[in-house]
C-alpha cells in the first residue's frame, strides 16, 4: 500500500468513526468516490471487533501475566482437596473454595503458578517458602494448613476466610480513624508475629488484607514471604520481582526501588501506605506511569492527611513513610504500642475520657471525630474491652451501662442497665464484671462510704470469673477491691492476671501501678502507669498517678510537666468531681496553690464544698484548708469512714492531721495506712506534709517497722 493511499485510509477511518454507525456506509460510499477497494479497506478496519481480551488490550506485562490456560472444574481432586467454587483469580493464582476430604473441613485452596515443564526448580522454591509461611500461627494471619503438589501443580491449602478485602471497604474519603486504628493494630500484630519469626511479608497491601464480618483482620499471602536471612547472599531484590508480585509498586519502599533487599522496614513502609490509604481513601504516592510513581516514592512527601486524621495517628503513619528506613519504626511491635496508646476503643473512651470534642487539644479533636463515626462492624469486643454476649440486646445494655459508668454520669442508671443485661444473659461475664465495677466506682468516685459495696464488688468479680475465668475486667476490678481492702500482695497477683489475659486493659496496669506505689517501688509503678497511658492516652487518672509517682521520687519538675500538659482542663467536670484531691494532695504539694486551684476548679466557695456529699471533694477541701491554717479541720466520722475504705485514704488523713498540727491523730492514721499496705517508708520521711511528725519516736518506729518487714520479705 502506498503511503498516499494509507493516508486516505487513515483519514476516512477517523472521519467515519465520527459518523453514527448507521450512517457510515453511506458516508464511505460518498467519501471514497467510487474507489471500492478503499471503501472496503476502511470498512474492514471499522469492522474489527474491539474485543477486550486480545493481546493488544493490555501491555506485554499484563498479557503475559494473564495465564489461566488451565482452570480445573469444580469437583476436581487436588490431593485430598475437592475443589468447589472458584473464589477468585489473579495473574498468578486461582483460589477455590474446597473441602479437605480427610477432615471434612472447608478450606481455601490456592493453586499457584502455571504448569510448565521448566519451572520445577522454581516450584520447589515456592514450596519451601509456603512451608515457611505455614509456620505462622496468629489470629490475624490467614493460616496455611498444607502445601502440596499434584500433577505438577503447586497448591496451598489455607484457612477459608469469610470476609472482604480491605481495599474494597475503603470509601473514597477513607475509613473512620477509629476503624483504621483498630485494623492497624491487628495488622501490626500480624507483622510483629511474622517478623519475630524472621518472615517478612513483602507484599502487604490493602488487597492482601481481608476483613471478616466480625471485623477481624486476616493478612494474606505470607506465602510469598520468605525468611529474612536465609537468602541474604542470593542477590538483590529487584523492582521486577516485587513489581511482579504486587502488580503495582504503589506500596514499594524507596530502598526497594533502589534495588535493595526487602526487610522488616519495607513491610513497615507498606503498612504506612496501607494505613494512609485506609484513612484518606487515597494512596500517598501516585503517578501517571510507573516511573512517575517511582519518582514520587523516591522524592516526594505524601500529601498531608485530611484534617479529620487524628494528629497522633497521622504521625505514626508518617513515621512509617520515612524515606530513610532507619528513621522508620524498627519493629512492628512499636507501631502496635503507639497505636494502642491512641486506641479509641470505647473501652477507654469511657470513664477515663474526660476530654470531649472541642476541648481544644489535639487529642480531643481526634477523639471527637471518632465519636462521630459509625462502626462498620459489630465489635468482636465490647467497648469495655470484654467479650460480648450472644444476646444482642444484652450487649447493647452493657454498652450503655459502660458509657454511664465510665463517665460517672449516672451510676444508678448503669446498675439498672446491667441488671437487665444479666437478666437476659446470666452467663454474660463482662456485664457481671461491669456490675462489680459499678459497685467499686461508687466508692472510688467518692459517692458512698458504704463498705458493703466493696464486698459486693468483690463477690460479683468472683462470680464473673466463675463464669469466664478469662474476663480481664473481672480480674482488674477484683485487684482494685483487694487493694482497697488492704490486701496489696493479692491485689498485685490479681492485677497481673488481668494483664496476662488482656494486655490492652489499661485498668489492669493502673491497679498494678497502684500496688507498686504502695510498695514504694516507683520505677515499676511509673512503668505500669505509662503502659496504661499507652493503652489509653486519655486515661487521666493514670496520668495523675504517673505525675504523683514522679513527685514521690523527688522529680518535681517532671511531675509538673506530666500533669500540666496542654490537654489539662481544670474546669472539666470530671476533674472537678473526681480528681481534685489527687491533684491537690498528690501532685502539687504546694497546698496554697492547690487550694486556689481546687476552689477555682470546683467553682465553689468553701461553704458549698462543705455541703457536698462527695467524699473525694471533701477530703481535698480538708487538706487544702488545713494548709491555710483554718481553725477547723472538717473530718467527721462519715468522711473518716470513707478515707479508711480507699487505698490512699489513710495517708491522706494523716497528711491532713499533720498539716493541721494534730500529731497524735496523724500518727494514728499513718499506722493505719501502713496496716492497709502503704509501705512507702522513704516517702514518709520526705513527705513535706508529714514534716511535723519526723522527730516523733512513733514516726521513726513506724518507718523502721516497714523497713524491717520489707527486709524480712526480701524487698
Amino acid at each position, binding site marked *: 500500500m502506498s503511503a498516499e493511499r494509507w493516508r486516505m485510509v487513515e483519514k476516512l477511518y477517523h472521519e467515519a468513526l465520527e459518523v453514527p454507525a448507521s450512517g457510515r456506509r453511506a458516508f464511505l460510499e460518498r467519501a471514497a468516490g467510487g474507489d471500492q477497494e478503499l471503501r472496503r479497506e476502511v470498512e474492514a478496519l471499522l469492522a474489527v471487533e474491539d474485543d477486550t*481480551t486480545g493481546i493488544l488490550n493490555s*501491555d*506485554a506485562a499484563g498479557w*503475559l501475566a494473564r495465564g489461566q*490456560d488451565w482452570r480445573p472444574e469444580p469437583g476436581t481432586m487436588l490431593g485430598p482437596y475437592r475443589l468447589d467454587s472458584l473464589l477468585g483469580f489473579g495473574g498468578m493464582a486461582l483460589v477455590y473454595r474446597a473441602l479437605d476430604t480427610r477432615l471434612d473441613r472447608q478450606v481455601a485452596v490456592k493453586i499457584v503458578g502455571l504448569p510448565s515443564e521448566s519451572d520445577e526448580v522454581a516450584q520447589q*522454591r515456592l514450596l519451601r517458602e509456603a512451608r515457611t509461611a505455614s509456620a505462622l500461627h496468629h489470629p490475624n494471619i490467614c493460616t496455611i494448613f498444607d502445601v502440596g503438589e499434584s500433577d505438577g501443580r503447586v497448591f496451598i491449602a489455607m484457612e477459608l476466610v469469610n470476609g472482604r478485602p480491605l481495599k474494597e471497604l475503603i470509601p473514597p474519603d477513607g475509613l473512620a480513624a477509629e476503624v483504621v486504628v483498630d485494623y492497624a493494630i491487628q495488622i501490626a500484630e500480624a507483622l510483629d508475629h511474622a517478623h519475630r519469626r524472621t518472615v517478612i511479608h513483602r507484599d502487604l497491601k490493602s488487597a492482601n488484607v481481608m476483613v471478616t464480618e466480625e471485623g477481624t483482620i486476616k493478612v494474606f499471602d505470607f506465602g510469598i514471604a520468605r525468611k529474612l536471612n536465609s537468602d541474604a547472599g542470593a542477590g538483590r531484590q*529487584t523492582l521486577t520481582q516485587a513489581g511482579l508480585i504486587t502488580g503495582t509498586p504503589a506500596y514499594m519502599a524507596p530502598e526497594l526501588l533502589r534495588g535493595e533487599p526487602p526487610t522488616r522496614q519495607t513491610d513497615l513502609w507498606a503498612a504506612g501506605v496501607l494505613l494512609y490509604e485506609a484513612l484518606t481513601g487515597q494512596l500517598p504516592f501516585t503517578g501517571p506511569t*510507573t516511573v512517575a510513581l517511582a*519518582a514520587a516514592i523516591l522524592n516526594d512527601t505524601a500529601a498531608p492527611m485530611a484534617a479529620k486524621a487524628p494528629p497522633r495517628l497521622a504521625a505514626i503513619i508518617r513515621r512509617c513513610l520515612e524515606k530513610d528506613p532507619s528513621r522508620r519504626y524498627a519493629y512492628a511491635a512499636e507501631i502496635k504500642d503507639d497505636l494502642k496508646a491512641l486506641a479509641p476503643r470505647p473501652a477507654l473512651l469511657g470513664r477515663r475520657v474526660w476530654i470531649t470534642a472541642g476541648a481544644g487539644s489535639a487529642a480531643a479533636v481526634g477523639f471527637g471525630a471518632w465519636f462521630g463515626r459509625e462502626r462498620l462492624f459489630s465489635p468482636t469486643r465490647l467497648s469495655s474491652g470484654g467479650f460480648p454476649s450472644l444476646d444482642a440486646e444484652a450487649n447493647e445494655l452493657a454498652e450503655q451501662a459502660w458509657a454511664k459508668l465510665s463517665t460517672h454520669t449516672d451510676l444508678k442508671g448503669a446498675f439498672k442497665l446491667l441488671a437487665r443485661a444479666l437478666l437476659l444473659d446470666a452467663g454474660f461475664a463482662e456485664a457481671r464484671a461491669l456490675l462489680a465495677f459499678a459497685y467499686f466506682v461508687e466508692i472510688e468516685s467518692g459517692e458512698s462510704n458504704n463498705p458493703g459495696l466493696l464486698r459486693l464488688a468483690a463477690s460479683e468479680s468472683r462470680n464473673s470469673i466463675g463464669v469466664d475465668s478469662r474476663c480481664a475486667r473481672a480480674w482488674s476490678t477484683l485487684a482494685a477491691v483487694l487493694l482497697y481492702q488492704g490486701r496489696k500482695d493479692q491485689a498485685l497477683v490479681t492485677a497481673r492476671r488481668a494483664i496476662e489475659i488482656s494486655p490492652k486493659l489499661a485498668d489492669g496496669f493502673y491497679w498494678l501501678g497502684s500496688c507498686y506505689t504502695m510498695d514504694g517501688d516507683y520505677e515499676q509503678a511509673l512503668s505500669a502507669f505509662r503502659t496504661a497511658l499507652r493503652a489509653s492516652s486519655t486515661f487521666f487518672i493514670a496520668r495523675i498517678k504517673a505525675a504523683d509517682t514522679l513527685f514521690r521520687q523527688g522529680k518535681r519538675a517532671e511531675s509538673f510537666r506530666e500533669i500540666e500538659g496542654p490537654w489539662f482542663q481544670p474546669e472539666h467536670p470530671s476533674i472537678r468531681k473526681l480528681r481534685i484531691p489527687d491533684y491537690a494532695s498528690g501532685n502539687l504539694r504546694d497546698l496554697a496553690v492547690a487550694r486556689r486551684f481546687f476552689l477555682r476548679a470546683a467553682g465553689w466557695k468553701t461553704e458549698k464544698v462543705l455541703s457536698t456529699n462527695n467524699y473525694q471533694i471533701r477530703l481535698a477541701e480538708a487538706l487544702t484548708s488545713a494548709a491555710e491554717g483554718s481553725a477547723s479541720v472538717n473530718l467527721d466520722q462519715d468522711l473518716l469512714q470513707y478515707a479508711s475504705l480507699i487505698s490512699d485514704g489513710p495517708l491522706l488523713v494523716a497528711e491532713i492531721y499533720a498539716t493541721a498540727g494534730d500529731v497524735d491523730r496523724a500518727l494514728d492514721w499513718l499506722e493505719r495506712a501502713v496496716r492497709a499496705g502503704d509501705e512507702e517508708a522513704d516517702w514518709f520521711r520526705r513527705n513535706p506534709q508529714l514534716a511535723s511528725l519526723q522527730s516523733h519516736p512513733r514516726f521513726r518506729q513506724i518507718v523502721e517497722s516497714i523497713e524491717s518487714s520489707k527486709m524480712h520479705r526480701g524487698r
Partner: protein
Amino acid sequence: MDTEMNQKKDKRATVTQLLRAWSAGDAGALDSLTPLVYTEMRRMARRYMNQERSGHTLQATALVHEAFLRLADAQRIEWQDRAHFLAIAAQTMRRILVDFARSRNFQKRGAGVRPAPLEEALLVSSRKDQELTQLDDALQALAQIDPRKAKVVELRFFGGLEGKEIAEVLGVSTETVSRDWKLAKAWLMREMGGGAKPAPGQ
C-alpha cells in the same frame, strides 16, 4: 563495594550523557546506548530467574522501568531523555520477548535447542508464543506502511508507556497518539486474523 558503587555511578553518567546526546540529535549515541540497555535488561532478567518464583511471567513493564531506574540517574535526568530511554527499553523488551517466543516455537518443532535460563524467565504458553510472534510479524508489516504507528504500538505494548510518554518520545500530541493507536490496533487485529481469541473464560 566502593568500586561497585563507582562503576554504577559511571554507568549512570554514561547513560545519561548518551541519552542527552541522542535527544540533541546525535544518532550515533543510540548505537552506543542500545547494547548497554540490552545487556542490563538481560542481566536483570537473568538474576531474576536465578532467584526464585515460579509459574509467573516476567513483567516486561517492570523490567523496563527498573532498567531505567538502574541505568539512569532518575533524579537528574530530563523528562525528554527519560522518554527516549523508555523507547529504547521498550524496543529491547520486544526483542527479548520475541526472540524467546521464536526460539521456543522452533524448539517445539523439534529442533531441540534449549532456551537459555533468561528465556525461561519469560516463559509463556506456546499459544502465547505464537500470538507474540504473530504480533511481531504484524508490527513489522505495519512499520513498512506507517513506522510511527508501529512505534506507538511498540512503546505502548512492550514498554508499557502511557499516551503522554509516547507523545513525548515521538514528538507528537497525545491526541495523535491516541488516533494512531486506534487505527494501528484495528489494523493489527485484522492482520493477525481478527485478533487471536483467547480460550473462553478468560
